[in-house]
């Protein structure tokens, strides 16, 4: 019987929360289908970070170059680890998961399931639930236990925090690199406002349509005493600075009120705001996934709504 292997990521020398969630699930599945659990970790801090996890075996690749994620080295290291019998690989759907999941599946001629949000056993079969079509649909997929990679969306289920004492294995790092990391660029502290500190966020998505319309959002935010944040396409279009971006590759925010205007609610966006105290979504599409996480919603036109709301707020204050 091969392992259920979790590829763990380290953050500041500690195993990341999304990786811990996977270890919990690997154990739960492993008990049902009678498979041992293994965890893989990279970098000089990996041995310390992995030694108390709830796994039977831990494979560590200590290379200093892996202190930060390195696509080529990490892939080669993982392929080395996979020489041990493995039936199922779980990877968080982070940059690492997006990099290694599909390529390792292809190299091993294994099946692959992406964007997983749940894993369960049905009889003898592992069944994954995945989010597709920007979160508008879910898919139920059978995962063969004969070699498969599943990439899992962080936060899909809680970690149980259980500890253990895995047998530690050191795996040597591959050399002869075609790829070199020139530098790590830390997140820009910048001199812009810090949206993570706002009580109220007026967050705009592609529904804003034109950069000229941002003024409406700024006026609304001013009337509310809040700040303007946005989804990724607004940043990629160059309409707002990156410091305003909420989501997977932006900031995680938890304001008292998150006003999502013209944001569809793609999984990568939800990841950054779903824990806000109060979420109000305005989207012309009644089927937009944002309404599944919002507390209140309206199918109104954001461009019409913003000035009217601003006026009402200003009238009230005056």
């Amino acid at each position, binding site marked *: 019987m091969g392992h259920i292997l979790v590829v763990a990521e380290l953050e500041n020398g500690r195993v990341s929360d999304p990786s811990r969630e996977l270890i919990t699930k690997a154990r739960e599945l492993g008990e049902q289908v009678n498979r041992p659990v293994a965890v893989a970790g990279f970098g000089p801090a990996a041995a310390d970070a992995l030694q108390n996890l709830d796994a039977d075996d831990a494979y560590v690749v200590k290379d200093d170059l892996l202190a930060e*994620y390195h*696509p080529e080295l990490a892939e080669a290291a993982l392929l080395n680890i996979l020489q041990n019998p493995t039936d199922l690989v779980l990877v968080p759907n982070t*940059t690492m998961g*997006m*990099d*290694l*999941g*599909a*390529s390792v*599946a*292809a*190299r091993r001629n294994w099946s692959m*399931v*992406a*964007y997983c949000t749940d894993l369960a056993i049905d009889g003898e079969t592992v069944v994954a639930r*995945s989010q*597709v*079509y*920007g979160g*508008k*649909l879910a*898919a139920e*997929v*059978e*995962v*063969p236990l004969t070699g*498969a990679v599943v990439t899992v969306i962080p936060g899909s289920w809680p970690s149980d925090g259980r500890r253990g004492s895995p047998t530690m294995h050191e795996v040597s790092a591959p050399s002869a690199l*075609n*790829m*070199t*990391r*020139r*530098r790590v*660029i830390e997140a820009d502290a910048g001199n812009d406002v810090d949206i993570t500190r706002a009580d*109220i966020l007026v967050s705009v998505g592609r529904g804003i349509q034109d950069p000229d319309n941002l003024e409406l959002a700024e006026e609304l935010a001013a009337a*509310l005493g809040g700040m303007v944040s946005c989804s990724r396409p607004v940043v990629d*279009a*160059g309409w707002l600075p990156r410091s305003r971006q909420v989501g997977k590759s932006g*900031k*995680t925010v938890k304001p*008292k009120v998150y006003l999502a205007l013209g944001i*569809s609610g793609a999984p990568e966006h939800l990841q950054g705001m779903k824990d806000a105290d109060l979420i*109000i979504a*305005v989207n012309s599409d009644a*089927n937009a996934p944002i*309404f*599944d*996480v*919002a*507390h*209140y*919603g309206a*199918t*109104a036109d954001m461009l*019409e*709504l913003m000035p*009217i*709301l601003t006026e*009402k707020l200003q009238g*009230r204050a005056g």
Partner: protein
Amino acid sequence: MKIAVLMKDVPDLVEDLEVEDGALPLDEMSFVPSEWDDQALEEALLIKEEDGADVTAVAVDTGDVDTMLYTALAKGVDRAVKIVGDFSRSLTNRQRAQLLARYCQNERFDLILTGVQAIDDLDGQIAGLVAGLMGIGHASVVRDVHVAQDRVRFVQEYSGGKMAEFDLACPALLGIQAARKPPRYVTIAKVRQVQKSAEIDEVEDSVGETPVVTVRRLYKPESGGHAEMWGDDVETVANHIVAILEEKKLLRG
């Protein structure tokens, strides 16, 4: 530098996704180019303008991909290639990747760009699958791609705004998150004009064995909760918002 841009079209999310018997009626739906492939195309065109490169747009003929390829030609690619065969809209990503990998292998591209993901890649992202099948250097969630001789330099986004700059020997494949500039726009008139003068090259192939995953069903997620809806009248909606903020004591003044 010989660059390929792998493109595919995906169901248009602007339309309602009506599931029938646990599947999407793909033949009846309208398709649009995957937005991240559009970003990859733009990045390739910027590289061409910056350093000179020969750019080929490649798509598998699963339906009407001609407009997508003519649009790429109108935007400035040197060549458009359609892999033709007995392919339906339900071609899996795995099968698509196999066809694309085989084509790219034969053509010996120095650099292959494609979108970081697409909304329908349930069985793996094209970028990773093609790179894995070809066994070449690759990275995903990438932007700011520049070329020099037989190497590429690029930035990979980690998370929360942290990034790293890498340098990679060709042949290489990169999954593009966003181009340096928003994708350029071409008018329909320009696309029509190109359609009259340019041709799409066709390469024949067929799919072989690939690992499969069995999709039991597609469905609209039964969400844990759904927003309480206030309708579509802006006056009413604005009043509701003011009232709830007032109730939560979040209004100033």
